């Protein structure tokens, strides 16, 4: 953190300090690590961004403000937002919170909105194409009763000031850098023209410039370091010799209970097979950082394809971003993972042994610099391809899987990529305890 802040002026903050248990409890695992990062940020006059989700009791809000976490973009309840604002927390308000929060702030007589900004979080490309980005945030703030001028400040100056970069951006004034939006009607955020770097970039919502060419270094483009081609046998679960039945550990998406589930499963020719028809599929995590192509795998329930010989894989795996795969067939899982790796990251959907949809995200395996219409079309095509298939649990693409591998609170047992002392990958992330996936 210290090195980042010192070496690059564009690093201005420590983002989303999410692990409130570690921040608030000195004995919790990870507490020392997170506080060292916070201290290093402050030592360099950086801003420490918070994540106050679910902290809406007065004591909790006091503790949050006292800890020095300077912002919150997770405000849901209007009263919660008011109390946080009163305690000096900078509010980064999402559109979902605006219609309830802003009327309350105004009712309470608040006229100074300098500690409030508007923001997005996890907004889907289709939503951005249809509704807009910052223009939509500002529009919703105005519709929620925020004075027009204040709403525009929430999308520009207030944010710049919060991050202590208002001498560079956030205002149209001598010495500042600014892209300029000309409006037909400020109240409806009707855009006439946008000037970016002094050039006309759009008329209305028609973008005129080519996409800015950024020469990303190889280190950013080539991040799928598998070191080898993944094979079907990497996903095979081999039973201990001589067994006709084994106990398996079982997880499902968003499973937080203290212990994983277990189940007895039959052994066929020495192998334990998933059974999608009774809701059991296989989930795998493939290491994409160490050129080992190490694979961990186990059985999950309630998620994955029912259509035979199918799998889904992605390099979006909050927050470690290895490659995860869920499937009912080893060859399909290998194909999905290799497709993701070949693209340099993204999503791949395999149905009945064939790749039926893919999303290329080859910048760090998470992003892309391609035109938005092209990416949006790929995303929609994947949803539609998934709708042509049968799924365990909720129908359609199990998009929630991208969040299902978090290793922070409240998760307990989790599947992670294999590491030295845990080749199976199943671990209790709160205690470090490990367990085999079958026994």
């Amino acid at each position, binding site marked *: 953190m210290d090195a980042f802040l010192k070496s690059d002026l564009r690093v201005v903050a420590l983002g989303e300090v999410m692990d409130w*248990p570690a921040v608030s409890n000195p004995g919790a695992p990870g507490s020392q690590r997170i506080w060292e990062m916070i201290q290093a940020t402050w030592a360099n006059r950086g801003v420490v961004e918070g994540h106050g989700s679910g902290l809406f009791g007065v004591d909790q809000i006091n503790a949050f403000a006292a800890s020095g976490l300077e912002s919150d973009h997770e405000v849901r309840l209007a009263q919660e937002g008011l109390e946080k604002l009163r305690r000096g927390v900078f509010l980064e308000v999402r559109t979902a919170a605006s219609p309830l929060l802003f009327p309350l702030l105004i009712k309470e007589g608040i006229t100074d909105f300098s500690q409030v900004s508007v923001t997005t979080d996890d907004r889907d490309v289709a939503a951005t194409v249809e509704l807009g980005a910052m223009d939509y945030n500002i529009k*919703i703030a105005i519709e929620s009763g925020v004075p027009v001028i204040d709403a525009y400040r929430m999308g520009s100056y207030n944010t710049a000031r919060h991050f202590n970069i208002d001498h560079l951006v956030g205002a149209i004034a001598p010495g500042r850098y600014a892209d300029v939006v000309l409006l037909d009607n400020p109240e409806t955020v009707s855009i006439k023209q946008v000037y970016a770097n*002094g050039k006309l970039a759009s008329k209305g919502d028609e973008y005129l410039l080519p996409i800015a060419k950024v020469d990303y270094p190889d280190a950013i483009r080539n991040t799928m370091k598998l070191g080898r081609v993944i094979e079907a046998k990497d996903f095979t679960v081999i039973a201990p010799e001589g067994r006709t039945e084994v106990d398996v550990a079982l997880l499902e998406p968003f499973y937080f209970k203290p212990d994983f589930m277990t189940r007895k499963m039959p052994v066929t020719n020495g192998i334990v097979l998933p059974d999608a028809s009774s809701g059991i599929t296989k989930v795998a995590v493939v290491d994409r950082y160490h050129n080992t192509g190490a694979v961990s795998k186990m059985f999950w329930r309630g998620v994955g394809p029912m259509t035979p010989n199918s799998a889904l894989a992605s390099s979006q795996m909050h927050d470690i971003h290895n490659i995860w795969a869920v499937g009912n067939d080893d060859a399909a899982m290998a194909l999905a993972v290799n497709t993701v790796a070949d693209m340099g990251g993204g999503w791949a959907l395999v149905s009945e042994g064939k790749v039926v949809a893919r999303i290329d995200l080859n910048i760090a395996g998470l992003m892309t610099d391609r035109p938005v219409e092209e990416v949006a079309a790929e995303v929609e095509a994947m949803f539609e391809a998934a709708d042509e298939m049968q799924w365990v649990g909720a129908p359609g693409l199990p998009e929630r899987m991208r969040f299902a591998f978090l290793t922070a609170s409240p998760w307990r047992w989790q599947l992670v990529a294999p590491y030295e002392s845990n080749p199976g990958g199943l671990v209790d992330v*709160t205690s470090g305890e490990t367990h085999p996936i079958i026994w």
Partner: protein
Amino acid sequence: VPIKSFLFALLLGLTSQATAHLLNMTEVRATIDESGDMHIDVKLDMLRANGTPEAYFEFAQTGSAALQDEQYQAMWQKLQQAIEIHQSGNVFHPSLVNITPPIEPLSAFQSSAAWPMTELSLTAKVNPALPMSMKFRSLFPFEEPIAIGMANSFDDRQRNRWVISNQSGPKFTSKLDPAAPAAAEEREDQWGYLLSALWQGVIHVLPLGYDHLLFLLCLYLAVNSWRERIATITLFTIAHCITLGIAAYRVIELSIAWVEVAIAASILVVALGNLIGNARSFSHWSVVFAFGLLHGFGFASAIRALSLPAESFLASLLAFNVGVEIGQIAALTVMVWGLAMWRRRASFPRLSTVANNILMFAGALLLLMQLHGYQHDSDPNGFRFPDQEHNHAHEDMEIGKTADPGRDSLD
């Protein structure tokens, strides 16, 4: 260690959630039967709708009777208004028929690690054969994401998509009958796209492609026999079709500003060639072909601005191209007719020189304009001379002489 783990487990139950916005997401299941009855089941965290955990708990105690309770009528009104069903350009709202509040202790409502969900049943009448979609307005506080699932009871059609408030849900079509109105409307949509792409092609020659037309005139003046004229124009057309396709598929991307500059230069070059009597060398097949390739790139910006629908991209691209050719044929007809009349007159050779002079001048002017405009504008169709913005651009350039070079790039 066990005591510490125990304490920590206790703590976990009391502290925050990293992903509350996924664990209490709104779930919507809509099913449509053959007679058009639509049943919508919604699982919803109504904490925000009630304001506080205590108010939500109190609401839950009312049970299903909360649907009739005077106190909650305004809330239900808002909820029904906020759920929209879109079909054939109409918007209508489902009716709430049943509610099942969560049965949990007050502590669960106050906990930040539990999300008591209320189940709602709504109904609506739709035309099962027509495409439809749902939208959840921010008029009511739905927790996001909103997972919309739509399915038929009579075929295996389903559409599932996560959305946020105010975002259109997936377009749901049934497989009822390929000749049903649903399919017809889709086809109409397709024809609509193709026609609009065709029309865009026409207007990108007449009048937006004035530079393109000037070049055509240059070519036309350059050759004398009909055979050569037809061959020249055909070659030019083939060439620009090739690059239009290449650019549309983004195989090669060129800066539109510099393409425009090069097109202006092409007019200047061929007009000059015509004048100094060296027409053949400047209208030689390979040169015509090369300029044709260049002009194709000129249309690429128009193609990109159209954002053609992915499912009929090739068809729309071809329609655009046909439109361009229609525009070109229309322009050529006028040229042929005008020049044919003129050629018979004695003044033709002299006037031809004048015409070439004008063309050369126009090409030069266009070239200067494009070069100049490139400094501060990127709209390929913008006329870059008047306007206050122009003066500002120059002021900016003056400042630019002292400012850092980073201003001129987007990275």
